[in-house]
């Protein structure tokens, strides 16, 4: 069982002696983790209310890995992740309002409502997405790093992916290329012990993922992904290796998702006891305790941080709710750059009896409009939801 895998995370090689930083930093780290936790819990609730659709992958429990990583990064560095990256974007500085709006599929969302929960993106914050294809972000990361190198900058790319993604062909191909070309990239596998419902022992022949890329020339290290300071320190070291020595490395961060794979997965594949064991290592709870214990923060500080997180998330929901739905006329927008000016036929809309270039949808016939409206009106209620996104989201609301 993956409990053994969990056991590893207590292994000696993972533990790190860390010192608490200054009060202000402690507050910031805790606040970021608390904000992500609150955001994810609220996203789950909004999903239950059908305000958000599609798949919803929550990172509850993985906050220390996320925040420890982003806190070690420079603004000019690139971060790229998976379909479980609301928190990653927020940690990089993306406004939670825009992330929530994306979950709601609204125009003010990070992708204008086109990408959804799995495809969050914020170029300004150098959060490069948000990708639904497992392992699809690894080659992209190598591409960002190649670009940084090519442009003679000292930017570094951090690529985060799951334990399951380490089995994709992209993993080996990208590791080899990154090492071969000495690309400034840090790979970080968020090892939460499961790829969907398949435990790491059932999907990876070698469960010590930090060693999985050695054969490609990418050395690795394990870190306790539930300890925000350990992660931050570890990532900082690897960033230096990438930035100065131009060597790619792989970090294996042990973490755990407290929720199901996506909004309500029945979780037949793991024991309640295992989940509880990990909940006992709640990264936010643990860090808060330590901050108080070592006198860096007071109960009042904690209370304030909690309230601030609540406020921000409440505002985010209000903002998302108020943001308009994308207009139907925008259906073909951004399909092509310059499709308005370039000659020729960029898209065809055969859904209406009047065949016409799709970009003319904007000023299409009245009938086309009526039909679009009729279509858009469908709630898809006739649709039988797939098992992975029906069922009840279990409300395991903690103090965080």
């Amino acid at each position, binding site marked *: 069982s993956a409990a053994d895998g969990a056991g590893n995370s207590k292994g000696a090689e993972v533990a790190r002696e860390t010192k608490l930083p200054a009060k202000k930093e402690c507050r910031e780290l805790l606040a970021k983790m608390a904000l992500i936790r609150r955001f994810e819990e609220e996203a789950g609730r909004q999903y239950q209310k059908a305000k958000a659709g599609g798949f919803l992958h929550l990172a509850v429990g993985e906050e220390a890995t996320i925040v420890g990583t982003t806190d070690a990064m420079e603004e000019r560095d690139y971060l790229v992740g998976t379909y479980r990256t609301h928190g990653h974007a927020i940690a990089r500085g993306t406004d939670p309002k825009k992330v929530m709006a994306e979950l709601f599929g609204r125009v003010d969302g990070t992708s204008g409502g086109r990408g959804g929960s799995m495809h969050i993106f914020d170029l300004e914050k150098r959060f490069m997405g948000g990708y639904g294809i497992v392992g699809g972000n690894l080659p992209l990361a190598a591409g960002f790093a190649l670009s940084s190198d090519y442009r003679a900058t000292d930017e570094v790319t951090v690529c985060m992916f799951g334990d399951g993604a380490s089995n994709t062909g992209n993993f080996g191909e990208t590791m080899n290329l990154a090492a071969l070309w000495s690309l400034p990239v840090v790979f970080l596998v968020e090892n939460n012990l499961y790829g969907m419902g398949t435990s790491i022992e059932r999907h990876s022949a070698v469960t010590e993922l930090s060693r999985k890329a050695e054969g490609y020339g990418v050395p690795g290290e394990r870190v306790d992904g539930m300890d925000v300071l350990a992660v931050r320190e570890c990532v900082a070291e690897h960033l230096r290796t990438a930035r100065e020595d131009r060597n790619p490395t792989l970090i294996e961060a042990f973490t755990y998702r407290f929720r199901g794979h996506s909004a309500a997965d029945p979780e037949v594949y793991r024991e309640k006891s295992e989940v509880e064991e990990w909940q006992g290592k709640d990264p936010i709870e643990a860090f808060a305790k330590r901050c108080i214990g070592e006198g860096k923060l007071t109960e009042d500080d904690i209370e304030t941080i909690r309230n601030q997180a609540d406020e921000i998330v409440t505002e985010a929901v209000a903002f998302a709710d108020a943001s308009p739905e994308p207009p139907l006329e925008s259906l073909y927008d951004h399909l092509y750059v310059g499709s308005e000016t370039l000659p020729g036929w960029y898209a065809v809309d055969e859904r209406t009896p009047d065949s016409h270039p799709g970009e003319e949808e904007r000023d299409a016939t009245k009938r086309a409009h009526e039909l679009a409206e009729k279509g858009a009106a*469908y709630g898809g209620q006739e649709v039988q939801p797939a098992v992975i996104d029906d069922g009840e989201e279990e409300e395991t609301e903690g103090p965080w």
Partner: protein
Amino acid sequence: MAVVRMREALNQAMREEMERDENVLVMGEDVAVFQGAFKVTEGLLEEFGERRVRDTPISENTIVGVGVGAAMTGLRPIVELMTVNFSLLALDQIVNHAAAIPYMFGGAVRVPMVVRMPGGGGHQLGPTHSHSLEALFLQIPGLLVACPSTPADGKALLKTAIRDDNPVIFIEHETLYGARGEISDNGDRELLPFGKAAIRREGSDVTIIGVLKMAHEAERAATELANEHGVEAEVIDPRTLRPLDLETILASVRKTNHVVVVEEGWPHGGVGANLAALIQDQAFDYLDAPVKRVTGADVPMPYSKRLEQAAIPHPEHIVSAALATLEGARA
């Protein structure tokens, strides 16, 4: 007769064929312990054990390739790809290996395998998770392509696919897994040969051809056409795109002289384009109006529910297209 959901029908087909033939096995991501991402393989692990129901790593091209190798050496693997969207990672094994091998080696070896995968939109899964790739697979010589729209067809076609000695691409629709339908209980007598289209509704005014979920939308449109417009539509579900039962379609066209093809996929080079090209070629003198196509919008599927629904064909579009062909309307 019993009423079951599509996912149960497909599950029965696999269970029955696995009981019938020891060489049939199921492989795929989360098909065993998790019981299948869409629960289609529910209970199979318990009944047949780890040897015959295998969870795989996330390695699409290799999973399919392992199936091809196993099929070449005596097994009859059913490979489940979690969705068609991920089949784009396995196309080399599907096209350059599964489809090519029997021909490439002069018939010395067979590849009796089935690649099952669901596709389509409607769940707001966005641009990477909503493809309809029927039109891509029907291009490939060497493959058989099935796309069932009812539980009865799903069960019967899957059983036929498992027993067929050719590589079969078996495309399901994510929004149809919960759809209910009657199904006969006497398993083996319910095999459905590939290449036989179903006439869902008889009519003399216009032929509407719909694939997968669109076969249902076509029926809804036909009802509306009859009730609101006095138009009798003949609704045809091809059920398999390779082989294609063009005879049944042409016979209908010769009767109705008007055609609408409905699909959820992209318009360029789609299922409708293929059918339109074949119909205009072989029933040219019978057509009173161009073959009309109702397709998904020519965009990666947007996440916004409003945009997604606007990008997917609905009965209104079909009704409108049918009336247009009857008017002989032209752009």
